[in-house]
Structures are given as C-alpha cells and as structure tokens.
C-alpha cells in the first residue's frame, strides 16, 4: 500500500469515528446548557484530556516545531512553563472557583460570567465581541497548520486539506455540541500523545540520541542549545508568558471548569491534565532535532511535517498525521462552541433580550457554529504567514481583555463594574497598538496589554463605587 493510501485510510477511519461521536452525542441534546456545557455532567478524565487537546492545537505542534527549528533547545522552556502555569496552576487556581461561581450564577460562557459578576452589559458585549472576532483569527491559524500537514504528507493541495478538516469539524460540532467536543477531544488527546511520542522516538533514533542531537546543534551554532539562545530573553519570556499565563483568560479552555460534574473531581483532573500536558515539550524538542536532520528548510513550519515523512513508517506517519489533525480539530471545535455561545447566548439572548425556546436556542447555536466554521475555512484558504505569530496575536487580544477581570473577579470583592470594563478596554487597546507598532524590544503585545489592564482595573476600581454587598454575597457565598 502506498504511503498516501495508508494516510488516507487511517484518516478516513479517524474522521468517521469523529462524525459517529457527533451523531451519538446529538441524541442527548435537549437544551442550550447541553449544547454549551454538556449539561455540566462531564467526568474528570474527559474534562482534563479535552482541556489538553484544546490547549495544544496543531498550531502549537506545527508552530512549536517551527520555533524549536529556528531557536533551538531553549524553546523547551515554552513547553515546560505551559505545563506548570497553563495546566497545573490553571487547574489549581481557577478550577474550583470557576466551577463554584458559574454554577451559583447559572452562567454558561465567559462573557456571561463577567456580565453577572460585575452586573455589566458592557462587559458582556465587549467580551463576546472580542471572543467571537479573535477566535476566528485563531481558527485560521489552526486550519493553516492542518492544511500544511495534508500538503506535505499526502501531497494534497493545501486548500483541500483546509476544506476537508474544516467540514468534518463543522459536522460533528453542529451535531453534538459541547458533548461531541469534549468526547472527541478526549479521544484526540490520546491520538496526539501517541503521534508525538512516536515522532519523538523516531527523531531521536535518526539523530543518534539526545546527546548527539545537542552536539550536532552546537556545531551549527552553540546558541541553539543554550538558554535563552538566539531568540534572546525578551522574545522567549514574552512568548512563554502569553502561551502559559494567557491560557487563564482563554474561554475555550476556561469553559472546561464550568462543565465538570463536581468540584471534587477537579483533583483527579489536575493530575491528568498535567501529565497529559507534559507532551507540550515534545514539539519543541523535535523541531530542534529537525534543524540537525534537515538544515535547509525554507519555512520552519515545515520542520515537523518534513521530519515525519523521513523518520516514521507510513503507518507511524499516518498516526502522527491523525494526531496533528486531532490537535487542530479539538481546538477548532471548542472555538466553534465558544463563539456560538458568545453570539447566541450573550449577544442575542442576554444582550438584545430575544427570548428563544430550548429548541430554537440549539438551532441558532448550530447555525452560528456552521457559519463561523465556514468563514474560518474561507479565510484560511489564503492566509497570512507564520502560524504561531498569527495565533499569538489573537491570544494576546483575548487574554488581555478577559484575564484580569476573570481572575480577580474570582478572588477579590473590591473590583468595580467600571474597573472591570476599563481593564478590558485598556488591555485590548494596548495589546493591539503594541502589536500594530511592531512589538518594540521584541516584547509580545500580551505583556503591555496585561500591565495596562491591571493598572486600569486597580485605578478605576479605587475611584468608583463598589458593587452592592448583597450582590457580592450572592457571588461569593451564594447568599443574598
């Protein structure tokens, strides 16, 4: 059997399985809480591994490999801090409080939480707008990664890869909603893990082990094995920060805490998410090894697809390909649910006051998921270059807008309505302007965005009236 036939067979089986999950879960759909949160009945293994799958998209695998290829072993730090801050600490600091608060306030989305926590329509609209807009940008990055993989490994035109992956995701998300997203995410995390481990073992074998890889990289440029390496501290720290701490403000990940069956289950989830998340280190390692084995690649984003073709058998390559596609699909699928929630739940139902029956709300959410999916596919067919930069831009905008009002809203009572809204505007504008002027000093827009957001939150909250005590009691202890 030719390699393309093997890839085609494995992918067809895999995608058929995803559609089947969508069909099965669609039969459990009764209302919008089922579509957005799976009825808050999800167990710890499914919650945590679907969190990992949504976190480490094809952008992280393909783009992370590109960064490892370009900047060497220092990029292992991005993966390591992803695990510590983006998985372990995120679950410890956010998990319990988010599950308790969102259950108490009966909210299903991040804009919904901000609106209820601060009694602010402006917070709801602003968050919904930013989430919907910038997650579409993120989707484009994801589809781009998948298109490249199809292109290199299967010799398919780039646009066919984008179209096929986009269509399958839209089908299973619109059928099964959040339940389909988390169950496919759970399966996809295993496929991603298996694919990454296979590729890492293959790459280490091809280069002669880690010691040989380090020696070979050092002979190309000694900086490639040192920290911070050729990237320098500013670039390394700010990218690490945005892809680790930035996660705390990303709705498609935070929503996992809304939907877990009980607070008690977060303990198991934290351990599973951390162990599963440890695979985040591997794409950077493999990317650095690709620099030794294929030193003349024109585009660093091709490091991982090229390595896969050379070090794995067609069956191993097919599993890795399925893993990358899985990574992209799980993130893309989560984003479709989040954006449809932002539009239908936050803008149409809550913002504009339109009453929808459970059936109409599910129908509207499905339509928005399909529309967002199609728009993302259309843009991704002719996208801008370098996946990770594109993605980091959207992460910066969303995280700088939502992170402080979300995080501090869970822990302190003194943040005011005006303080929260000012923080969101200051974070968003600063992150965009900083990125627009070319990210001075190599510092990612997320860093000044976060600083401005925090400064505005503290300053404006000090100068404006506190929220009423009875409201804060309801939020923090469930008593009013």
């Amino acid at each position: 059997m030719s390699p393309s036939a093997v890839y085609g067979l494995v992918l067809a089986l895999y995608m058929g399985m995803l559609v089947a999950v969508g069909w099965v879960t669609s039969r459990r759909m009764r209302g919008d809480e089922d579509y957005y949160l799976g009825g808050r009945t999800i167990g710890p293994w499914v919650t945590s591994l679907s969190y990992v799958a949504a976190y480490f998209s094809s952008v992280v695998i393909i783009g992370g490999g590109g960064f490892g290829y370009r900047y060497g072993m220092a990029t292992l730090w991005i993966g390591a801090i992803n695990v510590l801050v983006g998985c372990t600490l995120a679950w410890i600091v956010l998990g319990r409080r988010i599950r308790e608060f969102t259950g108490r306030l009966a909210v299903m989305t991040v804009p919904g939480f901000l609106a209820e926590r601060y009694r602010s329509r402006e917070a709801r609209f602003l968050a919904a707008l930013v989430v919907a807009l910038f997650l579409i940008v993120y989707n484009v990055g994801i589809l781009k990664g998948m298109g490249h993989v199809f292109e290199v490994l299967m010799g398919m035109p780039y646009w066919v890869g984008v179209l096929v992956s986009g269509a399958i995701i839209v089908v299973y998300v619109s059928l099964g909603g959040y339940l389909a997203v988390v169950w496919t995410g759970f399966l996809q995390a295993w496929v991603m893990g298996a694919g990454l481990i296979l590729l890492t073992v293959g790459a280490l074998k091809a280069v002669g082990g880690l010691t040989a890889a380090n020696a070979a990289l050092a002979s190309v440029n000694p900086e490639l094995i040192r920290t911070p390496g050729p990237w320098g501290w500013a670039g390394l720290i700010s990218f690490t920060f945005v892809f680790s701490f930035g996660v705390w403000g990303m709705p498609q990940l935070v929503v996992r805490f809304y939907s877990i069956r009980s607070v008690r289950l977060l303990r198991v989830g934290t351990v599973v998410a951390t162990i599963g998340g440890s695979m985040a280190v591997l794409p950077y390692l493999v990317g650095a090894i690709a620099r030794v084995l294929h030193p003349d690649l024109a585009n660093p984003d091709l490091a991982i697809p090229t390595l896969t073709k050379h070090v794995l058998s067609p069956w191993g390559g097919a599993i890795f390909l399925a893993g990358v596609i899985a990574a992209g699909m799980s993130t893309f699928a989560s984003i479709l649910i989040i954006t449809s929630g932002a539009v239908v739940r936050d803008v149409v139902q809550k913002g504009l006051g339109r009453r929808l029956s459970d059936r109409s709300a599910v129908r509207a959410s499905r339509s928005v998921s399909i529309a967002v999916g199609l728009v993302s596919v259309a843009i991704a067919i002719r996208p801008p270059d370098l996946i990770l930069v594109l993605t980091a831009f959207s992460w910066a905008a969303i995280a700088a807008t939502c992170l402080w009002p979300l995080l501090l809203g869970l822990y302190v009572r003194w943040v005011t309505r005006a303080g929260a809204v000012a923080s969101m505007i200051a974070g968003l504008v600063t992150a965009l302007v900083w990125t627009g002027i070319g990210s001075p000093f190599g510092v990612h827009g997320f860093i000044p965005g976060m600083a401005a957001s925090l400064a505005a939150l503290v300053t404006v909250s000090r100068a404006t009236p506190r929220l009423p005590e009875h409201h804060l009691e309801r939020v923090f202890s469930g008593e009013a």
Partner: protein
Amino acid sequence: MGPFGTPWMTFAAWIVTGCSVLLSILWAVRSSRGEGDDR
C-alpha cells in the same frame, strides 16, 4: 554542562516539567485530605 550534553539552564526545563507533575499529585492528595466530601 548537564545531562545529555545539555547546558543546565536548558536542562532545567525538563526538571520544571517533572516538578509540575509532582506538584499536581501533592495538591490533589492534600486537598482530598483537607476537604473530604465536598461537592
């Protein structure tokens, strides 16, 4: 130079990854002892 010909500063990334796993286990054990049967 650290293990596998990796400078210590770079090798520490692997150590941080391992410590994260350890931290998550310790936290889970500690919180299950401290909070018993909460839901």
